[in-house]
């Protein structure tokens, strides 16, 4: 029973679908389905009641139904844009085929479609950027964390710098990153756009620290007895790190990675907004500048999407965390 009531998130839903825990089914149904649904219903009700009372220069604040409507409209716009794109390419192909039929020596050319990115495109861009920034940060943070966790001296040396950089807002980094990327990343035919690099580096700089600190703490907290085992066995440095240090630091490391990913996602939206680089942040900013009667509803759609993606990313890391953790007795949530 407790294991059911303790569950949060996706797992119990899957369990319900899978039909497990039949004996506790009524209670499980109540706990995992009805209670959260009731919570959501109350939230929607309060929102619907409060929204019409908030007047802005763009009309009343959107209620749940307006937002729902704009969500559907955004999806429809995306579908329309894709149809447009397909039609554009089909027209080109037809034209090329026609010209080739008349003149076999004609080299057909295909011009790329240059429509504006839709809401869905912006989501995908944001997801790619956050992944790149997070992966880059992890690749730096984990080795750094291991090094400073293993050596007290290195820890003392790096700790002030880490503590100093940790609370810095992405908005403070952004101008510097933009200038440096503009100066360093110079290419006639860039592989990825400059704005992508800027957002990625900003995300990396901000989400590095929880992983560094957690990894270091995990590494430094290796059980003294296990260290003695390693000494008695005369394990070499690499074997010691691989067989003793890394596995024992794994739970802490994943806890850090999870926090880092959460920060990465938050930072990214802010960075995109300020830097005008493509992504959900830019979508929000564009809607704000646009100032039509639909803008506020569309921004709310983005807000809910950002929240939902953040939640999904967290669940993803939680799943990775429980896979990587050897201590199955801990209750991760």
């Amino acid at each position, binding site marked *: 029973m407790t294991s059911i009531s303790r569950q949060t998130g996706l797992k119990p839903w899957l369990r319900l679908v899978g039909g497990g825990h039949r004996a506790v089914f009524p209670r499980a149904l109540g706990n995992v389905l009805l209670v959260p649904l009731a919570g959501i219903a109350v939230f929607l009700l309060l929102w619907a009641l409060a929204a019409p009372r908030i007047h802005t220069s763009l009309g009343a604040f959107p209620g749940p139904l307006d937002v729902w409507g704009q969500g559907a409209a955004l999806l429809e716009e995306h579908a329309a844009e894709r149809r447009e794109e397909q039609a554009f390419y089909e027209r080109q192909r037809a034209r090329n085929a026609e010209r080739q039929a008349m003149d076999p020596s004609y080299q057909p050319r295909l011009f790329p479609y240059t429509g504006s990115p839709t809401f869905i495109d912006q989501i995908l861009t944001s997801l790619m950027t956050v992944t790149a920034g997070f992966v880059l940060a992890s690749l730096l943070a984990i080795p750094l964390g291991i090094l400073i966790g293993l050596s007290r001296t290195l820890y003392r040396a790096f700790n002030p710098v880490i503590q100093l950089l940790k609370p810095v807002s992405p908005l403070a980094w952004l101008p510097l990153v933009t200038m440096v990327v503009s100066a360093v990343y110079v290419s006639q035919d860039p592989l990825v756009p400059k704005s992508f690099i800027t957002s990625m580096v900003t995300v990396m700089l901000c989400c590095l620290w929880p992983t560094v600190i957690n990894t270091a703490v995990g590494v430094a907290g290796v059980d003294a007895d296990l260290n*003695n*085992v390693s000494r*008695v*066995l*005369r394990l070499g440095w690499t074997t010691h790190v691989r067989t003793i240090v890394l*596995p024992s630091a794994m739970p802490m490391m994943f806890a850090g990675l999870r926090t880092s990913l959460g920060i990465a996602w938050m930072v990214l939206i802010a960075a995109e907004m300020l830097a005008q680089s493509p992504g959900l942040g830019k979508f929000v900013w564009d809607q704000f500048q646009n100032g039509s009667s639909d803008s506020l509803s569309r921004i709310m759609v983005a807000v809910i999407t950002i929240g939902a993606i953040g939640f999904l990313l967290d669940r993803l890391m939680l799943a990775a965390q429980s896979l990587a953790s*050897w*201590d199955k007795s801990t209750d991760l949530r």
Partner: protein
Amino acid sequence: MSNYLDISKVSIDFPTPQGPFRALDGLSLRIRKGEFVSLIGHSGCGKSTVLNIIAGLLRASEGGVALDGKEVNEPGPDRAVVFQNHSLLPWLTAFENVQLAVRQVFRGRMSRAEMRDWVEHNLKLVHMAHAMHKRPDELSGGMKQRVGIARALAMRPKVLLMDEPFGALDALTRAHMQDSLMEIQRDLNNTVVMITHDVDEAVLLSDRIVMMTNGPAATIGEVLDIDLPRPRNRVTLAENSAYNHFRQQVLRFLYEKQRKVVEMAREPDDAGASGAASRGGVAGLVHRLGRRA
């Protein structure tokens, strides 16, 4: 070989804010090959410190240890340690835990298949063949300690060092483990140094019991030769007058000659906070005091 393991005039000081704390003072002991020696004494008397110096985990401030004619100055698998709280890697199975030691010690000297056989052989020796592929959190306290012993034995050590190996186990499991250990000892005839706070255990298992005085500046108080014939049986020994005589001598040493008023009232075993406190908290780096499973 009367001095296979030679501990000569070992003293150790731990730094404390109040200046150096002398835990051991001029302790000398010679152990024969194949001998089973128990160290017994009250908590905080430095038994574990002696073991850690033999293991090479701690360096003596004065004096030194020689094993088989070579000076000990760092830890190594020729002095395998069985730790009180098993110290198995929780993310590896019993088999993998022993395998880690075997790979490290016999790398280049055994083939992969030989190593596997040797790991299995040692796990069978401690009666753990049935649970080889379980992880420590799926094993009981006694079973974990068996795996810890298998890991130590698998290193084929010159000396087996046991730091209160059965201290954290319940009485029945402990008796069972002692019988297993005697059985293994009959076959392998290892040189063993064991720390214990259990008088019956010391008399039952040992060839010699070394009784230590209370710290600070602890040293050897008395040494008792236990010349009871082997194999020994705990049930028949209970009525044996020689056995009871030895028990009484150890008890007399501990509770009359080296009586520890404060600690006896509170803490009959060796792992309490009082022990850690009397060591000035320094030895906690190495000793696992107060950390029983």
